[in-house]
């Protein structure tokens, strides 16, 4: 039942709640799954030098990023006992309150899903060549820095 096909990770624009629901529903056929851990990154309305962030515009070095996502998947399947793993990241404009990152980890027992999900999110932020530009109300912008 292990599902580790290579697939495109990037979605243009926000990741919708309906897309997430469809992903969850698609896993009901995998009856060896006992636990899902889902991480969602949501664009925050940070205040930076008196201006509120209204959106983030994501760009990426796509060929290298897809390769990195693939390596992160392979490492997670090698290290944890997982049934499924899906990663989606936005490209282009994602508005405040919308979802830009969706990591979906499924396992038989909960510990694998929890540990893998947390590690994958850290690796995505650390290793994948993606850049966010925070856009303010007045259309000025600043490049996002990850902490």
């Amino acid at each position, binding site marked *: 039942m292990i599902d580790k096909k290579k697939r495109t990770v990037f979605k243009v624009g926000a990741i919708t709640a309906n897309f997430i629901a469809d992903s969850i529903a698609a896993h009901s056929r995998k009856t060896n799954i006992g636990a899902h851990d889902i991480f969602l990154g949501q664009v925050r309305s940070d205040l930076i030098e008196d201006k509120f962030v209204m959106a983030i515009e994501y760009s990426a070095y796509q060929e*290298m990023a897809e390769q990195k996502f693939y390596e992160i998947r392979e490492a997670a399947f090698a290290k944890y006992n997982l049934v499924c793993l899906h990663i989606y990241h936005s490209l282009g404009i994602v508005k405040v309150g919308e979802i830009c990152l969706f990591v979906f980890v499924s396992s038989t027992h909960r510990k694998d899903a929890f540990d893998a999900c947390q590690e994958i999110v850290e690796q995505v*932020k650390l290793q994948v*060549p*993606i850049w966010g*530009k925070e856009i303010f109300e007045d259309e000025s912008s600043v*490049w*996002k*820095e*990850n902490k």
Partner: protein
Amino acid sequence: MKINIIVFGQLYDMTKVAQFTINEVDNTEQLTQKIMERFPLLSEFKFSMAVNKKIVHGNTILNNEDIVALLPAFSGG
């Protein structure tokens, strides 16, 4: 000997071109020097380099038609 350079994130704000070529360099140190001559503003930024999609550390030999990416700190997620 032709190297293809691609530029991402805030580095692009400095170069105003997404890609360009540099000729007659043998390694990433020589390449960096030539890039800085052409785009002096880049010297103000920390960035890493990927040669054919692999991050390189230290001076690295280059081959004809290599693709070198200039990568500012990642900020995905």
